[in-house]
């Protein structure tokens, strides 16, 4: 059984179809890219999977359960985590708190313990902190744990978003343009990091990316979206030479 199987997904906004009969599947441990020209509907697909939008039609089966209609936090609890195209960190909180918040669903003490400061509380807090630090170390952000998220340089903010998503202990990690705004060297590092966390945490990863060198370099399989529909699927090499893809990006050959 596929880890995630999306069938006949439709979504329109005020009469404009954003996603149109979208079909898609992902296997355990795969690293898949979703690409396509501007306005093709990629982020809309992510918003549908994570419950930000409700689809007009279709199903999103994840680990055998349909995610359609579930609240975003429930979908997160099922094991789906994501980052955002325009970074959405908790800006006025520290790096460490950003990660701790994402670990909230595993909080090992009750509300009364927190208010009465019982030993459970202190033990639980230590546990959460250790867990958070572990992730921060992997992403080389541990030394910045007490800085406010908004004060991090741009590339580190992007990394912190990934850390935060990982801290929800997901099975499927969805990355929305993780390299946007990064320079080539940062992009290179990010590529290696994505491979590393995939292996280390047994993750399945789905990403949207504009930077073709990243997509082609890191993804095993690609889907190409145009006008809300999948127009091609295959390995990076296949995609690169696919006429429909070239047309979607560059337009039809003229003359």
């Amino acid at each position, binding site marked *: 059984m596929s880890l995630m199987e999306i069938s006949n997904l439709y979504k329109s906004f005020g009469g404009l179809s954003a996603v149109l009969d979208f079909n898609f599947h992902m296997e355990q441990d795969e690293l898949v890219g979703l690409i396509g020209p501007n306005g093709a509907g990629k982020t809309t697909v992510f918003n549908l999977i994570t419950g*930000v*939008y409700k689809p007009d039609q279709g199903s999103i089966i994840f680990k055998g359960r349909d995610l359609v209609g579930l609240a975003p936090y429930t979908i997160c609890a099922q094991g789906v985590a994501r980052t*955002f195209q325009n970074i959405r960190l908790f800006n006025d909180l520290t790096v460490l708190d950003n990660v701790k918040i994402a670990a909230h669903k595993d909080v090992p003490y009750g509300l009364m313990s927190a208010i009465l400061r019982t030993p459970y509380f202190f033990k639980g807090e230590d546990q959460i902190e250790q867990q958070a630090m572990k992730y921060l170390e992997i992403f080389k952000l541990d030394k910045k744990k007490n800085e406010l998220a908004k004060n991090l340089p741009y590339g580190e903010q992007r990394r912190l978003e990934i850390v935060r998503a990982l801290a929800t202990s997901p099975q499927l990690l969805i990355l929305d343009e993780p390299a946007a705004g990064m320079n080539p060297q940062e992009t290179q590092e990010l590529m290696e990091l994505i491979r590393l966390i995939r292996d280390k945490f047994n993750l399945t990863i789905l990403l949207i990316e504009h930077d073709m060198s990243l997509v082609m370099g890191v993804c095993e399989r690609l889907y190409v979206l145009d006008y809300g529909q999948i127009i091609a699927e295959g390995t990076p090499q296949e995609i690169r030479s696919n006429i429909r893809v070239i047309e979607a990006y560059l337009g039809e050959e003229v003359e």
Partner: protein
Amino acid sequence: MLELTQQIVNGLSLGAIYALIALGYTMVYGIIKLINFAHGDIMMVGAFVGYFSLTMLGTNILIAMLTAMAACAILGVLIEKIAYRPLRNSTRIAALITAIGVSLFLEYITIFILGPSQKVFPDSAFPIKAYDIAGLSILNKDLFVFVSAVVLMLILQYIIKWTKTGKAMRAVSLDQEAAVLMGISVDKTISITFAIGSALAAAAGVMVGVYYNTVNPLMGIIPGLKAFVAAVLGGIGIIPGAMVGGFVMGLLETMVSGYGNSLYRDAVAFGVLILILLIKPSGIFGKDTGEKV
């Protein structure tokens, strides 16, 4: 049946006042997405300007209304420039809190200068007469309020629909960036919106003076809130919505005082507000829009 008709007649003039105030709320919200909490207090200032124009300058009621409108137009523009413009790019909460501040400021600076007591509108400014039409008793002040409010609303409709300025106002409220690309000055357009909205509130203030016969520094609060409810009821940001909402509120209120318990009169407005917010926050004429991620 006759009594019901009588209640409707009474409700129409009150509704017209609410509609005028609601228009200002809705226009300002439409263009800068701010609930101008001080709008009811601008109405109060208008009422006082009208009062002093009648008593100290001895003008007639129409001149008093025009004076009040001019004065409040300037006041509205100043408030926007000083208090709201610096906050245009900050959070809506910050803007709302500032508006609350402006509201308190207008109320208490008026109390500070004029004292807290109410002032009686001079009878000579508007001698009350009652007409008997088909068994209904219609007061000339009701007629005056209704007719002048409708005239003002027609003028507003004309400005918004047909003049270049009105079209620019609509363009800015629809898409600020695209409007700039047409060469429209956003700052200037927002100023004009405040001027028009405040002038309408001032006219309503003078009408409230005629209607209730008194003015006081806190008189803007309750009608202001009710007019706000009217604006939300019609769909905030939508001009015809404010007019309809205003009349609905006025009728509802006279019905409740006429048939029910007048102590609950003010609660009705809040009850209506909560019902709309919970059932259809975008109001009767509004479209629901989701947040972008």
